[in-house]
């Protein structure tokens, strides 16, 4: 028996290879081929729907990727009715029932982004072309997010961004098929500035060290704008190579410049090293202009804090979410994650879990896995109970607007996970901006067929 079909897009009809499929007999597609004409790419066949979890499994962000993967596995478990249902209990939308999505069991495939745009796209393509994934999610850097988002737009698949903080993801490079729950550089700047003003005063001189790539630029820009608006002066901004490991030659001249605040627009390994070096130079013990010298890290993550060890103590930064939040949604998530894996989730895990839930919920509400239907369901969607207070998925740029956390390195941590303490929950209104300020075009949604 044979059946052939010419499709406009490179599409492959498969049942989920992982998850649902077993050694059982080969499947015949002919009767259900009609689904191929359901009007969108990779319309789920049979009783499963496949999601693609594309996270860094090798390279410097592998641990963060591992945490993202844990969150995805937990989300799949909850969606399929396993475990204690986590945030499904607190989520304001009640469309999800623990019966899979649209009656189909959720299966997943995993891939390794290697935190390289090329590799991430290769991995995402294999999920789309080989495994029939209907949605791709994950990632731990903006470069990867932007690259995979563009791929998903071209292919006609929904992309639910993982950890990506650059303004570009939902700014200059936004795409109709891409959605981001995580916050961005602009929000970090807007949330941090008032707290910095309150703690360090309004006449400070800041020295920026900025990782020399897109995310670094947008973060520096955001922090500069918001702190300068408050009255701070920017003494200098120096770009550091992304591949730099020893920052001594960048940090040593800071004191000579007369600056009394050092802003480290670095993430991941860059941040761990630059902060370690800065503390090593004893900057924080110094007095400049009659004030204590301070260091700021605009974007924090728990894994970075862990890497930097005791050096983070007392240093301000912002974060998307933290496990010590006490709202019902966060508590429910921390509980189910903690009971399954034995330690609290990171913000990367949180955003990935929430993105999966939001996608599933949107599919349920739209009644289809068609990317255009899902996009419509997500655009302008307001929800609560996911850990950051009432949240809006803005239609204009597919960015979530929600509370942003300003945190500080904890002085006396009780465990290796208890490294940050929440200083302030900045309300969403304070970090909301006009959708047009970063340019870019959303385009139209692409269902891929």
């Amino acid at each position: 028996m044979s059946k052939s079909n010419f499709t406009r897009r490179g599409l492959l009809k498969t049942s989920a290879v992982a998850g649902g499929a077993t050694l059982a007999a080969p499947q015949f597609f002919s009767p259900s081929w009609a689904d191929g004409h359901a009007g969108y790419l990779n319309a789920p066949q049979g009783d499963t729907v496949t999601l693609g979890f594309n996270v860094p499994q090798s390279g410097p962000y592998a641990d963060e990727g591992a945490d993202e993967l844990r969150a995805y596995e937990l989300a799949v478990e909850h969606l399929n009715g396993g475990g204690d249902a986590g945030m499904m209990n607190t989520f304001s939308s009640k469309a999800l029932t623990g019966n899979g999505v649209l009656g189909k069991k959720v299966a997943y495939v995993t891939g390794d982004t290697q935190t390289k745009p090329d590799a991430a796209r290769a991995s995402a393509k294999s999920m789309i072309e080989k495994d029939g994934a209907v949605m791709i999610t994950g990632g731990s850097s903006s470069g990867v997010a932007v690259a995979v988002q563009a791929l998903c737009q071209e292919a006609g698949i929904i992309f639910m961004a993982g950890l990506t903080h650059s303004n570009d993801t939902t700014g200059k490079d936004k795409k109709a098929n891409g959605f981001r729950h995580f916050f961005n550089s602009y929000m970090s700047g807007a949330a941090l500035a008032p707290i910095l003003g309150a703690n360090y005063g309004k006449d400070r001189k800041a020295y920026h060290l900025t990782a020399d790539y897109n995310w670094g630029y947008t973060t520096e820009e955001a922090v500069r704008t918001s702190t300068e608006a408050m009255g701070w002066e920017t003494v200098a901004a120096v770009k550091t190579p992304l591949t730099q490991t020893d920052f001594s030659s960048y940090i040593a001249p800071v004191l000579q410049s007369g600056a009394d605040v050092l802003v480290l627009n670095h993430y991941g390994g860059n941040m761990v090293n630059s902060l370690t070096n800065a503390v090593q130079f004893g900057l924080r013990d110094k007095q400049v202009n009659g004030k204590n010298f301070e260091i700021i890290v605009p974007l924090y993550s728990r894994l970075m804090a862990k890497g930097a060890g005791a050096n983070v103590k007392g240093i301000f930064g912002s974060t998307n979410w933290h496990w010590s939040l006490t709202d019902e949604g966060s508590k429910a998530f921390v509980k189910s994650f903690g009971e399954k894996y034995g330690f609290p989730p990171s913000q990367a895990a949180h955003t990935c879990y929430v993105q999966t839930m939001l996608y599933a919920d949107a599919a349920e509400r739209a009644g289809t896995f068609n990317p255009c239907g899902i996009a419509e369901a997500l655009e302008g969607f307001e929800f609560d109970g996911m850990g950051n207070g009432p949240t809006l998925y803005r239609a204009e740029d597919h960015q979530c607007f929600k509370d942003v956390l300003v945190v500080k390195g904890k002085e006396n941590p009780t465990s290796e996970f208890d490294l940050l303490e929440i200083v302030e929950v900045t309300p969403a209104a304070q970090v909301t901006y006009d959708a047009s300020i970063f340019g870019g075009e959303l385009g139209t949604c692409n269902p891929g067929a």
Partner: protein
Amino acid sequence: MDAIILQILNGLDKGSAYALIALGLTLIFGTLGVVNFAHGALFMIGAFCAVTLQRILTLSHVVIDDTKKDFLGNPLKVEVPYIYDWFGQETGAAIIDWAVPLAIIFAIPVMIIIGMVMERGLIKHFYKRPHADQILVTFGLAIVLQEIIKAYYGANPIPAPAPEAFKGSYDFGALLGFDANTIIYPYWRLVYFAFAAVVIAAVFAFLQFTTFGMVVRAGMADRETVGLLGIDIDKRFTMMFGLAAAVAGLAGVMYTPINAPNYHMGMDFLVISFVVVVVGGMGSLPGAVLAGFVLGILESFASMREVIEFLPGINQVVIYLAAIIILLTRPRGLLGRKGVMED
């Protein structure tokens, strides 16, 4: 002026790291002619010797503290290192605090054994093979070593701080008559510099003044003749590998407080260490050390704000640019020997 002094200090410090790593590499690559892509991995393993010792010293048993709650609301489990039980909390904490310097003692035998096993088990079969094969096998080995470390310690950097006594920085400005706080330099980096100087001097002295060193130097020049003299040169070369591994490992151990070690740090240093060795000149130990300092100082100056503003991106490329210029003007690098790996 103060800015320049500061960058010279920086350059010396960076340079000592480069020189130390390149020194180990040049013992194997520059003189034995084995293209060892696993050298970075040896540096990384050295750093993880410090982490491992730290882990050993902080081996703990769990005490349940009912007064505090953990993140799930259960009673907090507090981990108490055994060492506290044995030596009391204060002494115990002090020993843990000194984990990194103590790791030197731990790392030397470990690294020597790793280096010798590597040579006996693998590299010795590759002396006569083409460089391409050496690249493939040592690169494979580097990946394997790296992945083993990653599987055990994870991918995230692990902080391994210097002892409390070396926290903070020394104010050179005051010493030299500049304003306070203009020229400060962390104590640990000064220690690193001194340590590098001692290790480099020791290796030189060892090769210069011992019989072993003489035989090895002769063996580098003409392996067959030395073999004819009835000297087991292979055995010396094995020991040489052990020595190179130990030097790389020590560089790694002492580096941990400067940058928190991760499984990938070896690869980050691999390229630069090859560049340093070649710019220094193949087969020349002093060349490698000199090149390390030259490139370190150049890199420091290129990262000055004034320089970057004048030449954007120069901080990214200065090492490579310098390497190109040096190799074009001096065909065998700074102090290279003729005929080593030129074809």
